[in-house]
C-alpha cells in the first residue's frame, strides 16, 4: 500500500457504481467520500481535504467537464474521469480542461487503482520536487537532463529529450498530442501529428527494449502518449480487463 490513508472523492450519480468503488478503494486502504451530483462534489472538495477525485461524466446537475473545470480553477488535486468509449475528442477536451487521466467505462478496479496510484505518485513527486522518473529499465533525471537505459547513458537529440521530458513530467498519465506538439514544436504545429509519430518512432528505437511492441512509451490511440509507470506495464492500459491480474497491478 503506497498511500495508506489517501482520501478519494467518488462522484457518480449511480449508487451501485459508488458502492463498488467504495468497497474496492476501502479494501485497498483508501478513505472514501461520495458525491452524487456535481454541486455536492464541488462543495465536498472545498470543505474537506481530498487527495484525488474520481468523477463520472454523466451527472444529473452539470456536465462532468464543468466539474473538472470548476475544481481545477482553485485546486491542483488529481482528477480522474470515467468516460465512455468512442469519444476520443471528449477525452482530449477533458484532459485539456485539467483532468489528469481517464478510465473508460466499463472498467476493472485494478485498472482504476493503477491510475489512481500513478496520479497520487505524480502529485507527491511534484510536491517534493523529486527529479528522478523511473520507467522499467529507463531512468530520466530531470534535473541533470540525463536519460539512462539499464544504467548506461543514452544520447538523445534536444527535441527527443524535450519530448521525453514532457512525458516524464506527467509520468503515468496520458499527455495529449496537442500538448506535446505545443511543448516541443510550438503552438503553430499543434495539428502536425506526423511530427510526433516520426519522433516517437526514433525515440522508441533508443529507449524501448522491443521498439515493435513498446512498453515504456505507450500510445493512447486518438488521444496522446503515456509514459507507463510500474503498476501499468503498458499492456492493457486501456482495456478494462487489463490482463494485469489484480495482484500484479497492485505491485
Amino acid at each position: 500500500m503506497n498511500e495508506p490513508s489517501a482520501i478519494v472523492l467518488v462522484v457518480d450519480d449511480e449508487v451501485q457504481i459508488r458502492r463498488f468503488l467504495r468497497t474496492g478503494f476501502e479494501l485497498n486502504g483508501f478513505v472514501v467520500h461520495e458525491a452524487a451530483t456535481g454541486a455536492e462534489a464541488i462543495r465536498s472538495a472545498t470543505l474537506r481535504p481530498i487527495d484525488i477525485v474520481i468523477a463520472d461524466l454523466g451527472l444529473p446537475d452539470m456536465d462532468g467537464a464543468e466539474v473538472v473545470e470548476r475544481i481545477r480553477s482553485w485546486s491542483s488535486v488529481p482528477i480522474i474521469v470515467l468516460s465512455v468509449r468512442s469519444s476520443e475528442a471528449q477525452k482530449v477536451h477533458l484532459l485539456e480542461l485539467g483532468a489528469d487521466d481517464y478510465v473508460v467505462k466499463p472498467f476493472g478496479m485494478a485498472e482504476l487503482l493503477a491510475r489512481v496510484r500513478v496520479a497520487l505518485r505524480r502529485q507527491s513527486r511534484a510536491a517534493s520536487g523529486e527529479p528522478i522518473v523511473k520507467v522499467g529499465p529507463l531512468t530520466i533525471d530531470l534535473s541533470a537532463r540525463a536519460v539512462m537505459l539499464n544504467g548506461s547513458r543514452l544520447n538523445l537529440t534536444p527535441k527527443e529529450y524535450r519530448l521525453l521530458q514532457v512525458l516524464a513530467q506527467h509520468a503515468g498519465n496520458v499527455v495529449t498530442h496537442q500538448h506535446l506538439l505545443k511543448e516541443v514544436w510550438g503552438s503553430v504545429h499543434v495539428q502536425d501529428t506526423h511530427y510526433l509519430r516520426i519522433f516517437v518512432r526514433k525515440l522508441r528505437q533508443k529507449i524501448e527494449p522491443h521498439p515493435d511492441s513498446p512498453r515504456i512509451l505507450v500510445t493512447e490511440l486518438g488521444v496522446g502518449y503515456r509514459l507507463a509507470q510500474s503498476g501499468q506495464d503498458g499492456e492493457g492500459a486501456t482495456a478494462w480487463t487489463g490482463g494485469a491480474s489484480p495482484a500484479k497491478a497492485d505491485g
Partner: protein
Amino acid sequence: MPNALRLLNVREPWRGLALTFFMVAVMTAAIHVIILSVGLTRGSVLYLIPVLIASIRWGIVAALFAAVCGVIASAFFFFAPRYSFEIRDPQEVINLALYIFTAIVVSQLAGRLKRQLELSRRREIDLAELYAFSRRLAVAFDLSDIHSAIEDHLAAVIQRKVVLFAGAREANASDRHNNGSVPESVQKLVGDVAGGRRDAGAGVTVAGEAGDVWLVRPVAPKSPEFGVIAINFGRESGGNVDEMRARVDTVLVDATATLERLGVAHAISEARMRAQTDQLREALIGSVSHELRTPLASILGAATVLSTAPALRDDKRLQALVHDVRDEAERLNNDIQNLLDATRISSDGVKPHAEWADPADIINSALDRCRRRLSDRRMVLNLPADLPLIHVDPVLVQQALVQIFDNAVKYSPSGSRITLAARARDGRLILSVTDEGAGLTRAEEAQIWSRFVRGERHSATTSGSGLGLWIANAFIATNGGKMHAVSDGPGLGTTVAIELPVTQAAVPQLESDADE
C-alpha cells in the same frame, strides 16, 4: 423576367406607331420614285404593305394608324388636287375603306395566330417542366425531396415565389425554409387551411406586407398530404390575379395528376411513418444502451472488486465463478457496443477523425484490447519496421482489427496460430489476419460482409450477432479502405485483410526545424 416583359408591353404600342409612321413615309418616297421613273399614276395601293406589316407585327391600333396615314399621304401627294388634303375622287374613299378593312381582318388573324403560338409555347414549357417534375419525383428519396420538387415545379411554371407548407403540423412551426420571407398573415392563413379550419378549395387570396397579394390553397383539395402552398403574386390588380389563379389551377391539376400517378401520396405517408420509426428506434437504442450499460459497468466493476476480496481470493472455485461473471458481462458489453456501432453506421454514418497515425500503434492497441481473448492462441506478428504513416481515424481502424481478431478467435481452435502481417505496396497498406480455423465455403465467402449473416455451419456452436465484419467493413470504408476475405476452403483457415490508402506524395515531410 416578368418585370422586363411588362416594361416592354408599355412601350410596344408607341414603338409600333413610330415604326408604322416611318414605313408609310418610306412607302411614300418609294411610290414617288416609281411614279417618276415608270409613269404609273395609281401607286397608292402600295400603302397596303405598311398596313399588312403593322397589323401582323403590332396589332389593330398600328394597322388602323397605317391605313389612315396611307390614305392621308396618297390624298396629299398623289391625288388631284395635289398637295392638299381635299378628296374629290371616290376612288380615295374606296381606298380608305379597303385599307381599314384589311387592317382589321389581318390584325385579327395575326393576333389569333400569335396567341395560339404563345399558348403552345407555354404548353410546351409546362410539359417540359412537368416531365422534369415527374423525373425528379421518381428519384425523390424522402418527404422533403418530394416537397421541394413540388415547390420548385410550381415556381418554375408560374414564375412567382412559391412556398410549400408540408402539413398541419409544419405550417405553424418553421418549415424546411426560412419562413421569414412569408408574412405572418399568410402563415396564419396557411395554418388555418392546413389544419382544416378553413376551406380554401380553389384558393384564398390575402394581402401580405407591402401590398403583395398572396394566394393560399391546398396543392390538391382531395389529398391533404401534398400540403398547402402560398404563392406571392406581387402587386397585381384584379384582372391579372384572376388570370394567374386560372394558370395556377391548370398547373396544379397537372401536378396533382402526376403526383397521383406516381403514388406519391402513399409514399409521403410511408416516409412520414418511416421517419417516426427511425426516431423511435434511435431513442430506444439510446436509452437501451444507457439502461443496459450502466448496470453492466456496476456488474463488471463489482466482479473485479470481488475477485480481489480476501474472502474469495484463495478459493479457486469462487474465483472461477467471479471470472465467469466478468467474462459474460464483458461479452454482453461487446454485443451492446456492436449494436450501437451498427445503429450509428446505418443511421447517420460514421464520421472519421483522420490524423497521421503509425500503423504499428494501431496494431499494438488492437492486440492489447484483445489480449485476453487471444491468450490461448499462438500470435505471430510479421511487421516491417518501416511501415508508412497513414492518414486515417486510428480508433476506427483499431476497432475493425479487433472485430477481425474476435472472428478469428471465434472460428479457430484453441492453441492454433493467428498470424498478423502488415505490408505496404503500390500506395496501399495491407493488414492481414490469418487463422487456422474453420475457413469459408464459396457461399460464405460471398456473403461474409452482409449484416446479420453468420456461418450456418457454426450457428449452433458459436455465439454472436453477425455484425462484427459488417461493422469492420463500414469502419474501413469510411477511411477510404477496403476489406477482403479469402479461404482455401472449409477447415483450411481464413485470411481477412484490410487495405488502406497510403499516398506517398501526400505524406507530409518534416520541416527542417523539426529535425533539429
